């Protein structure tokens, strides 16, 4: 039976509290918004005023797209004043608020607009280099913003200006979804384009776009050489005509040109050049035996040249071979060039030693003062009979049954 007083006490407590709640709700219903302005300029002070007769101080819940906060009021002459903090008033957009007190709530929203002036022009341009010819383009994106970094309202007019060669073009675009953009197409010519923009008398800085030449088209090649002999010691220089794209722009410096040389044995030799002012030069050492070269140059996948034919006359007509010191020292020479002068040092001479048609040894050397010499070490080539073949300058001499001892 001792439980009963406790129950009674509880009952009284509940009824009392519900009474209090109802009383408060009555008071909240009397709170009303007094501020009528619903549009503000970013950065201005914003205070929401509510009437309040009973002196309660509910918190104001306030939210924009950056986040939410609760604001405590201050009372001035029985009026609730809610001062919206700076981090909300400085950002453009819609701010929603809600005042909850008891079971009755008030809510509403107001709009903050950007300042009607431009402080900076956030500009992006990309890609910074495009190809000439009129199909490639770069995109300029301008975001005019006020001093508080708020983008200006929709349909703000932005003037874009660009200079290319002798033309200067200006154009107007309007911001949409906070940004204004424009595609700038290349012209037929290559060159440098300067771009800027303007909004409400504020100008952006200068931006640069490189309009690069397009891919090259067909070209021709020529060759220069000191003489037409295959002495293996002079350099033939190949040169292209000026490489241009279809709109007559000289291709960019450094364009790689492959010179492919096909000789009479159908073997492919290669030399390379890269262009300066459209002209690529490549060098090649003369062959050391009489040859016929067919040269064609390529910018692979894009352009090619005519086929150039070059003949190299045999410079060395014949040579002598002397065996000495048990046939182990083989001297080749004199090796004479086209005017019977001694061939310049470095002509390659190859010696091959066969035994029963299998190669025993293959040795290379280079000529010095018109002669080349091989010394056959007994460890390398045992005492025996061999067939010895000597090749140089495309000539070949065979000595059968040479005995080494």
């Amino acid at each position: 039976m001792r439980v009963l007083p406790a129950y009674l006490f509880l009952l009284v407590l509940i009824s009392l509290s519900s009474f209090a709640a109802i009383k408060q709700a009555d008071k909240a219903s009397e709170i009303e918004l007094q501020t009528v302005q619903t549009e503000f300029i970013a950065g201005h002070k914003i205070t929401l005023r509510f009437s309040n007769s009973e002196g309660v101080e509910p918190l104001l819940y306030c939210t924009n797209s950056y986040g939410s906060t609760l604001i405590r009021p201050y009372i001035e002459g029985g009026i609730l004043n809610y001062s919206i903090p700076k981090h909300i008033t400085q950002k453009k957009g819609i701010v929603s608020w809600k005042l909850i007190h008891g079971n009755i709530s008030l809510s509403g929203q107001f709009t903050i607009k950007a300042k009607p002036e431009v402080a900076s022009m956030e500009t992006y341009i990309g890609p910074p280099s495009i190809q000439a010819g009129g199909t490639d383009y770069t995109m300029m994106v301008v975001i005019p913003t006020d001093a508080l970094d708020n983008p200006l309202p929709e349909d703000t007019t932005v003037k874009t200006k660009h200079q290319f060669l002798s033309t200067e073009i200006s154009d107007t675009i309007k911001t949409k979804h906070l940004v204004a953009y424009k595609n700038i197409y290349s012209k037929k010519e290559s060159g440098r384009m300067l771009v800027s923009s303007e909004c409400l008398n504020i100008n952006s800085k200068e931006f640069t776009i490189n309009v690069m030449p397009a891919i090259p088209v067909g070209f021709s090649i020529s060759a220069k050489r000191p003489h037409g002999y295959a002495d293996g010691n002079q350099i033939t220089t190949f040169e292209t005509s000026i490489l241009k794209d279809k709109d007559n722009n000289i291709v960019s410096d450094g364009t790689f040109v492959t010179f492919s040389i096909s000789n009479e044995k159908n073997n492919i030799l290669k030399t390379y050049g890269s262009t300066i002012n459209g002209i690529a030069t490549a060098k090649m050492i003369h062959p050391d035996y009489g040859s016929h070269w067919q040269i064609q140059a390529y910018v692979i996948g894009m352009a090619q040249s005519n086929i150039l034919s070059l003949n190299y006359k045999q410079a060395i007509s014949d040579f002598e071979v002397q065996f000495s010191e048990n046939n182990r020292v083989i001297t080749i020479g004199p090796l004479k060039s086209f005017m019977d002068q001694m061939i310049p040092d470095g002509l390659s001479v190859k010696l091959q030693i066969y035994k029963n048609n299998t190669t025993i040894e293959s040795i290379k050397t280079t000529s010095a003062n018109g002669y080349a010499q091989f010394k056959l070490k007994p460890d390398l080539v045992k005492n025996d009979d061999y067939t010895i073949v000597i090749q140089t300058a495309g000539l070949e001499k065979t000595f059968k049954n040479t005995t080494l001892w």
Partner: protein
Amino acid sequence: MKETTNKYLIVALLLGLAFHGSSIFFTLETTYDALIHLFFADHYANSWFEPWNYKWYTGFTVMSYPPLVHQSIALLSMIGGLKFGLFTVAIISILLFITGVYRFSLLITGNRTTAGYAALLAVFSSSFVETLHLFGQLPSIVGISVLMHALPEIYLWLKTGKYWYLATSLSLIAVTVTSHHVTPIFGMIFFIFPLIGMVIMDVSRESVDTIKAVTIRVFIQSFLKLLKRIISFGLLSLIIIIGCILPYWINSKNNPITQVPIPHGSRDNFLEITSSGLVFFIIPWGILLILLPYLFYRYYSKRYLFFGLSFTLLTILGTGGTTAIPKTILGETAFNILTLDRFTLWASIMALPIMGEFAYRFVQGDLKTLIQSKFGAVYHRIIGGILAGLFIFMTIFTMSLSYFRPSQPDTIKMLPIVNFLNQDNHDQWRFLTLGFGDQMAWLSAQTNAMTVDGNYHSARRLPELTTRPIERLENSKFKGVAGIGSLQQFLTRPEKYNLKYIFSNDKFYDPILYFCGWQRLRQLENGIMVWERLNIPPVSSILPKDDVAKWQKILWGTIPLLTVLLAFLLNIHMLWINALKTKFKASPAFLNFKHDYSKFSPTVLKVTHIWSLVLALLVCLAMYQFYIKNDSQHNPENAIIAYYDALDFKEFETAFNLINPNSNMTISQYMLEVSVTDGLLSSYAKLDAIETMVTTQTNNMATVKVITKWITPLEKINKVDYKILSKLNGKWYLEPDQLNTDLPPDQLYSANSTSYHNQGRRRITTEQTHHEDVLKQPVLEVLSAKLVKYENHYAIVGEIQNIDNVPADVVLKGTLYNDVNKELASYNAKYHMKHKLMPKETTAFKINFEGIAWSRTKDSIPDTFNPDEFTPVEFEEQPTKFNLQAAGNVSGSDLFKNLTLSNIEISEKEINGQLFNSGLQEITIPQLLITYYDEHKTILWVDHLFVKEGIRQQRKQDFEYAILNESKVNVINDIMDNIYVNGLPNDQISRKIISKRIDNHANSELQPVSHPNYSFIKIETNSYIGNPN
């Protein structure tokens, strides 16, 4: 009795401080370990309680090494910087060692004078000098020193049973374990167990009349009597060993060392590898070798019997791989993890008391009397002079070893590198050092930037490192195939590790850096070359770590210094009394067991004499052998080996002196010829092995077949030469080789070329690069690509072109998938491509899929070195699809393209050709890329050839290339759908620039070959310029 200060100890301390204290400033920083400890100390100085360190190995925990020494340095660094801390701790360790030896010797001999002698000898003992000045093992020294301090306390606890001694001994054990983990564990076995035996022996001795009366029964009785104390000490010290560095044990359990063992000289066969024998046997033993008979004689006397056994064991274990015994005793695993030199160190330290005793007896005791009576006073003085001379010689020799055979590269000024890393956010990427030696630790301590490498191999985590027997990437050239192989994986896929910068102090690595796609940035003012790789993302701001519980961090951060504090408080009392003699103190119990120094055994003297004679003979023999081996002109083989050695070390004058003086070759001509040869073989090769075979030899002539194996950063080169030697005046000389006489056509010539410069940031600002300063990535086009299988490995081959107007650095990454689109492997193109392309240039490429080489078992590591060799990744499933990502970045470097193919001859198995350098730069390493095509002229395979010799300007160079064998290339997939350039689909991006490509444009220029599987080939050239001008 009033105690007097021990003069010998005072002298030892003063000498020790003066000698070591001044010389550490010249030696410590060039030791192997000191800078590593400095790096750890830097870690504690910056984050005392956080054990995770991001700077090495993409992160590791410092809980892998006991922290006391590092934390002490860190604490002292707050006063005067890291190096101040290092040297202070080093000086403290010297003091601890000398006093430790004194106390240990006093315990063993029970005689203050002999202990004083021992302390004096310890100052100059070659093993201590080596450990401190050559190895820089500070924790090890502190550990063993404190252990020696603990030994008398342990003795007194066991003997007297006073709890005070238990406390002091345990406090010292705690300090030992927090400074070095291995020391107390093995110290238990090798020092404390014999000590326990000695205590029991002493107790037994007290219960009977003479030492002879101590029988096994008496011994066991005494043992049982002391059992309680022994067990209590054993258990408590075990708890301390585990408890004080509990996080260390937890870490070792969680991250067991599962790495391939790293070879260590102390495990070598000392007779075969004499340099290891010198460093790990002769030096630490030093003069003790002469005293061995006396040492054994004394340690095998009844009282020291257990020390004798321990000493014997230590001696044997210290011999490393010379005999099989250490391996059998320790077992395979322990043998491969432990460095066995520590056993020799401990043996030599254990020998010190007896050595002190010998010195005492020799200088002023019974041995002096015996020798003087037997051989006369003069003999005694001579012997004394010889012994002292040898002793000091060993000390000087050890101290100066690093002067004559530097173990480290010259000191590198770190400031320019530190500045470089601090500039321009360079520390946002990881870096790697090459050829820095242990100085890399010092660099790491000074910068916030992280490296993929590290210098504490037990903490390595990346499988690329743990599966190789290499300590560091940094010195990988000394580790043969495994080293370079490991390095190549890091160089080929640097984006995996955010590795952007390489600081190279060794030009050996330059070719591999170039051919892996790296470019030289600039040379810093300290001569270090900075290499850079483009297209590497910066390290993310949040990095993973293995976190540990907070209690572990607190324990790790507090316990070590607390143990020192505790030990200090417990022992200060004793120290105070001992040092200042403030009050009379009963002499400790071990002083009651004095040895009688009145009658030196003549037999021991005789044995020592005979032993010394044997040693002297051995030394003479060794010296003779050394002379014969090193007399370069004694026989043809020596001459050849000396000649190649001289060439290998670029000692050209030495090499020239081995050339036949009658050959009319002058040194200037020889030097000229040497100086004009450049290339992979002459500039970047390290002689790995040389084998000589004398094929014919007469009295005055010999021909030798020389088979040489060279390690280069790119591949292994085997060479066979035949050399003729002749004998003049009893000396063998080599005949000079023939010279290439090629004469260039022009004396002076000119060429124009386009060069580029990328400004980077145009504004000097620390902000992010301005939007408009970011260059557009050059557009590339993949012309063809297919997944192929050749023999047992997969590869993506194809061709790529730079279709933009600016030169591009090209990075190619391929990924393989199976039928259900599961990713199987991913790798980058290594050197089967030209990484730098001019506008419109094409290159063939091949991406090999390398596994983490030899990751399966350590047994499969090939003995022979071949950096070129790679392990194909092992696929669990069949790759059927591939994805190729090409990234271009504007680069203006390494654009030399003037290597031309000037002649070619094709036979069935071989291509012989000639290259010609038509440019203005000397080509150091020419590379050929050989692309194979089928009969329809579609690509099948890409191969490469590094030409061994360089090509000077306007010179020709022959090459030989063996055409691939008949194995067939299977094309698995040639659908080019998943190919992306700079993140955009290949097709779309290329069509924008080239709307109408001429397909198969240069197909008519392919070289026909007669081969069953391939119909055409194409040869492209690439060249590495070692010294651009």
